[in-house]
């Protein structure tokens, strides 16, 4: 459980302003889904892994006598896909910012995480994938993140390799989940025992940085595993586009990460060792919800990580200047004057607060208000100077003559 303090909320809203602006400019529309959803939305095969489902907050509602459980939203994408199936059709560009709830055994980690994300529903092209990758990188750039690494994999490719390893469907699921949970060695371990894949194994763990790498892999892998030609070609199309756009990336097939609903390209965003976001293509999710044959892909950025990494001073717009409005004690007329003066100051773009407790202020400007002439005394704490004035325009002129706070 975690509070967001005033200082943290300031950063939170700063981030929000930037990603909202980016999403809107790329044509995405904001949606918000309920905090409580039905559990079965998430238990349907191919949505969340049993390991992750074992950590959701599910419970019986007050009308849960049928045994139907509800859950605190454990994922951002599935509810948006449900909303699309319930209410929309055709192509949709949707974005959201939401909290998701996952149990963490260590008390130090929070069980509520914030993320923002985009879902591009109704198109299955390489250009759509490239749009999402470029958009996510643009947001991170505008947030001042330098040295973001983009890592690519492909769910279809991993699945084709798992089939080839001779695992039964349950084992394939299990292994896919291991890989998605970040077990980079998992694929290598089982490949070692496979007569067909044993000799290509070393290639799988390499990191490629160009389409050339994938073409080389294709030349070799399709000999032993012809089934991977199709997912590999699909992968190549997107990667080639990224090359055209001049975006840097790393390809590591064995290090997919994310959700079981991914079917195509998987991308992860890192800053140093910290994962700050990721996404992928999930063409089977909406069909599994009965929404018809609708392809989709999307990504999410992890706001908790970004909040701790962002350098606020580099991206924050200058804050309005603050002024404390102080009423002379026991002066009834002054209160009315003070409200009027504060209103004018706010209209002029200042943050005007009333002094309610009479404590020493750390603010530069204090405006003392009286019911009689001279009505105002402007105190400049930096220059230790008091100036009297009789109108608020006079006060504004005095402050604007000085440099910013």
């Amino acid at each position, binding site marked *: 459980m975690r509070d967001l303090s005033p200082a943290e909320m300031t950063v939170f809203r700063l981030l929000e302003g930037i990603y909202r602006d980016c999403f809107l400019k790329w044509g995405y529309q904001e949606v918000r889904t309920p905090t409580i959803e039905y559990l079965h939305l998430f238990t*349907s*095969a191919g949505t969340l892994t049993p390991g992750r489902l074992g950590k959701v907050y599910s419970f019986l509602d*007050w009308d849960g006598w049928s045994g139907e459980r509800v859950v605190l939203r454990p994922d951002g994408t599935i509810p948006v896909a449900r909303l699309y199936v319930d209410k929309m059709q055709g192509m949709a560009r949707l974005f959201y910012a939401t909290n998701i709830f996952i149990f963490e055994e260590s008390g130090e980690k929070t069980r509520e995480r914030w993320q923002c994300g985009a879902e591009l529903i109704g198109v299955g092209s390489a250009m759509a994938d490239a749009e999402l990758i470029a958009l996510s990188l643009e947001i991170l750039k505008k947030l001042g993140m330098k040295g973001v690494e983009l890592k690519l994999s492909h769910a279809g490719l991993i699945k084709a390799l798992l089939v080839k390893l001779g695992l039964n469907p349950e084992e394939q699921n299990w292994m896919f989940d291991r890989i998605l949970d970040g077990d980079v060695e998992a694929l290598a371990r089982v490949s070692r025992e496979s007569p067909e894949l044993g000799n290509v194994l070393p290639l799988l763990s390499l990191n490629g940085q160009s389409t050339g790498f994938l073409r080389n892999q294709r030349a070799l892998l399709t000999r032993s595993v012809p089934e991977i030609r199709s997912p590999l070609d699909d992968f190549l199309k997107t990667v080639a586009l990224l090359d055209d756009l001049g975006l840097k990336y790393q390809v590591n097939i064995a290090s997919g990460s994310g959700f079981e609903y991914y079917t195509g390209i998987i991308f992860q965003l890192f800053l140093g060792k910290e994962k700050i976001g990721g996404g992928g293509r999930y063409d089977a999710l909406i069909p599994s919800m*009965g929404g018809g044959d609708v392809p989709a892909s999307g990504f999410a950025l992890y706001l908790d990580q970004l909040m701790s990494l962002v350098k606020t001073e580099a991206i924050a717009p200058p804050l309005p200047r603050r002024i404390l409005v102080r009423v002379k004690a026991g002066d009834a007329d002054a209160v009315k004057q003070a409200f009027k003066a504060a209103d004018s100051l706010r209209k002029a773009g200042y943050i005007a607060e009333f002094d309610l407790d009479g404590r020493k202020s750390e603010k530069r400007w204090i405006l003392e208000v009286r019911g009689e002439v001279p009505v105002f005394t402007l105190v400049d704490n930096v220059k230790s100077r008091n100036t009297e004035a009789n109108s608020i325009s006079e006060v504004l002129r005095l402050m604007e003559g000085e440099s910013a706070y």
Partner: protein
Amino acid sequence: MPIKIALPKGRLLRKTAAMLHKADWALNEYHSEMGFYRPESPKFPDLLIRVFHEKDIPIQIAMGNYDLGICCLDWIEELLTKYPSSDVVKVKDLLYGEGKLYAASASSPVELLRNGTLVHIASEYPNLAEAFALKKRLSRFSVFPVWGAAEVYPPENADMVLLSAGTLAELAACGMVPVSRVLDFSAFLIANRNSWESKNLDKIVTSICDTLPEVEKRAPEKEEINRDRIVARFSAREAADGTVRLALPDGHQQQQTVELLNRAGIKIDDYPSETGNRRPKIDIDGVSVKVIRPQDMPLQVANRNFDLAITGRDWLTDHLAQFPSSPVKEVLDLKLRKVRLVAVVSQELSVNDTGGLRQFIAAREEPFRLASEYVNIADKYARDKHLGHYRVIPTWGATEAFLPEDADLLIENTETGRTIARHNLKIIDTLFESTACLIGGTGAVVDPAKGRRIEAIVKRLRSAVGDA
């Protein structure tokens, strides 16, 4: 601090008593179900021993109320599967009380459903049942927690059950076909993690472990089970032929129930049954009977698994405290088995009413503990009476043993108050009076013939109650 150990009642009592006899514990009272739940051992005079329902023991150990406990692995896993970070250490397999947990259905299953069809699972192990459903990737399921008699639910009232059985043959004897073997279990010595890390438990542990045979446990034998095959028989749940489905209670309410039915001129064969038959024959056409736990009836009626059921108002109230809009209601007060539901504290506590209780709670730092079989009534009581920071400890009987060490207040039923006085406890509040009652659904009965049958049964019972 003395060392505290929790010993099981029920299925493990006889073998646990035999083991402790072998270990020279010479317990004065741990031989039959009619105990005072506070045995003493001359061998370990400082050891504090309490007797609980087996299902309560892992919870008591996890909470740190007891250092050591003995219970079967099924109840340990039922706790750990939902709360994996519980402070329970499995110290030693005691190699007795073996059994297996099976997922089973009533007939030869066809296929595992991942296509969105709702699968109903009845079980005394709701957490393990949920974990099983998730692991098998059932796309949609409902778990009905039951107090017992899970095997009688399929096929009409559940698609599948998760239940314990000694062998496949035992399972077959109650008409069940296994779907999956979920867990092999036996009795375990368990410890609270903090106690294990910081207290000297070695003498007790050694004394218990010295009784164990030298041999290592043999590997569990393999059984052929049709894996991954579950059939949903949802269609069978709403009897299309207009049959009225009546649920009758098992346990000690059977005698009074059968007398009432006799007075109503309703004849019923093999109830109470000496052979454990849970589907007795009734002499009214178009009525079928199942014998289940009275605790489970309101939930079952709400889900239209039964049209009528004879249970207690206490259990109906508990169900409605959990689900206020549940479509189940009292149809007829049967005026049998009159008990009061009362709030009980230790005699040593200087609290005599709820006002005093609030003062007592406000003055202490740790959360107030309510123990009850009626979890939802206890929870509502604590909310309604503004009991501040409280915790409800679910129990499965023998609740008196919880006071004063392991709980601060009980919500209990009592007929005469004598048991409560005998345990050095006192009543500080009466919640309501409970009698046996006939319950039914609140929804309309569509089939007119079925509606008439239900009416006829209610009428006969009403006149029998009036005659009493």
